[in-house]
């Protein structure tokens, strides 16, 4: 058995009912699986369906277990392993607050421009940038801002979708 740790992005379509997120999170904590990020929101108001996107890591055997265990939860409709099932688009949104004046402030603004981050709040001594990109891009941006007066960062975690015309 291969013991290589793989990172997978998994999309789960669930009934939007009380406790459903607790079931998913409880499964991960109870069985000792990793959650690197998790996002959830209702995506179909008429049928009360929510989509959970989670990024997890483990050996191939563990990843298969995670999918089987998720599928077993009663309110779960579908489980898709976007990493396995072919090319997918993955994006994160981040809000990054940077405080400072002078050169650092100018450099922060310049870098934000390079990263195509938007300024969503500005004061004379601070900016809040909004950035959308891959996890790596967000990591890079936050890394750079650390040296330029980073105050705080808030990230959504990954949302993802398969490429091409097929629906989930």
């Amino acid at each position, binding site marked *: 058995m291969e013991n290589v740790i793989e990172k997978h992005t998994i999309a789960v379509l669930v009934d939007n009912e009380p406790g459903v997120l607790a079931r998913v999170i409880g499964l991960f904590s*109870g069985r000792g699986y990793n959650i690197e990020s998790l996002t959830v929101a209702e995506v179909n108001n008429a049928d009360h369906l929510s989509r959970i996107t989670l990024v997890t890591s483990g050996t191939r055997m563990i990843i298969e*277990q995670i999918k089987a*265990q998720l*599928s077993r939860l009663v309110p779960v409709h579908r489980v898709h392993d976007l990493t396995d099932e072919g090319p997918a688009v993955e994006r994160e949104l981040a809000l990054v607050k940077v405080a400072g004046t002078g050169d650092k402030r100018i450099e922060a603004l310049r870098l934000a421009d390079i990263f195509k981050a938007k300024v969503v709040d500005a004061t004379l001594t601070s900016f809040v940038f909004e950035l959308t990109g891959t996890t790596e891009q967000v990591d890079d941006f936050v890394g750079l801002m650390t040296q330029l007066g980073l105050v705080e960062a808030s990230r959504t975690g990954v949302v993802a979708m398969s490429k091409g015309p097929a629906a989930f």
Partner: protein
Amino acid sequence: MSEQKLTGAQIVIKALKDQGVDIIFGYPGGAVLPIYDALFQQNDLRHVLVRHEQAAVHAAEGYARSTGKVGCVLVTSGPGATNAVTGLLDALCDSIPLVCLSGQVPTHLIGNDAFQEADTTGITRPCTKHNYLVKDVDNLARTLHEAFYVARSGRPGPVLVDIPKDVQFADGTYVPPTEVKHKTYRPQVKPEIARIEEAIELIANAKRPVFYTGGGVINAGPFAAKLLTQFVKTTGFPITSTLMGLGAFPASENQWLGMLGMHGTYEANLAMYECDVMINIGARFDDRVTGKLSAFSPGSKKIHVDIDPSSINKNVAVDIPIVGDCGAVLEDMLRIWKARAKSPDKAALKEWWGKIEGWRARNCLNYNRTESVIKPQYALERLREALRGKDHYITTEVGQHQMWAAQFLPFDQPNRWMTSGGLGTMGYGLPAAIGAQLAHPDAIVVDVSGEASFLMNMQEIGTAVQYRAPVKIFILNNQYMGMVRQWQELLHGSRYSQSYSEALPDFVKLAESWGCVGLRATTVAEVDQVIEKMLAVTDRPCIIDIAVDPKENCFPMIPGGKAHNEILFGPDDSPSDATPEDGMVLV
């Protein structure tokens, strides 16, 4: 008909009746008074009052396992629900279908730390297959029907429905079960035929095959057990089973190797170790069975039939996974086996059986037969003889006596054996026996028990007396928590820390105080006498206190972290080199 207005409590009663419930095990309290009031005003549903909510769940498990139906439990909020938790987890671990109804504080008080409030759905989420909190009386009937559907479908399990008190009082609409269909939950029952065909090829070409079956066959119903027996006899292969699967294949048949695993037989474990094709039907490669995973059946191709996809490749990687109901799979297997006119490799099989007979000759369940003290194995052998040919059900508690019962009592039919396998809950056996007895009033129901386990739920004698359930509590009294003592002897230098049963009651007087029959055997000669007297009691419970050898240990034993071919046969096998350091941490 589906548009009548009823109170929530009446909806509960009607839904239970429509689901075919005839007995409900429960304990009243403030948050379920409306349901108890509705129960009072009808005669179809029989309520059995237990003495502790944990026992209500175990009794429902005994009922469910002996009938194949869904067991039903009713408890109040707060402590009522938390007391039921152990039973719910027990049912989850052993895949027993139950519906547990719990009262809850009224919806407007939820979250306010009200009297007897508990976050019941939160607490029971990891202890149930699924659970619900019903906040609207118009969802109550639908939810209850869904709960029964979820409990019995796929891999069965316990489902809890938490019902706030105001919902029980409110008027709502009843919908019958026929109008309820679950939105998403559709477990795969029918297997993929291509996989079955692959499996049949592998089975037909096997040289050293073994069937390894489990509770999945029992859960699939008596029909599945019949098909299993037919298939195993058709192939002529040896068969072993887990603790949960006993009775699916008749123990009186020569192809039966006995139970496998930590306290399984030598022949069963070695057959698993040396087989070339393993046919796992409805078992889950539990750690009690596999022992050291890296040395588990190293040379075999493995077929795994399970209704739960998450059981596949969880502990052991298999070659042919088949997701489906054991009955449906066995039906297809038999059909394809016959359609393709398959036959086993007779010459190879003969050689394989020769090897197995050699292991069998080791007589691994033999023990030191003596007249000076009652050996627990002897008491069970005598019980076995006394029960032969009689309609009987066996439950157990947890520990040495449980393993001896599995080794020494033969089961020729499914649903006759009820024991806490996955969770290992001491105190399971007596309430489970009551549940089985109430479902089968004319049968003999014996709870094979130890004195320590019995004490954990002995208050249920009161329940048995009240409902005239003539259960037999067969206590193998060694004055120790025997399995704890055995591990302390083998792994902890005989330092018997807290495993002595101090201050035991006089079990005969205890029985008499409840108006039951109490019997005691302290000599070998008395064993048959007390068993005979015990079987003559048919109108009240009977407690049988058998003073057995306090030092006896349960063998064979595969210590934690060891492989199937590293078996301890008895006290003469040295425990010092028996258990590696990394095995010590295993339970």
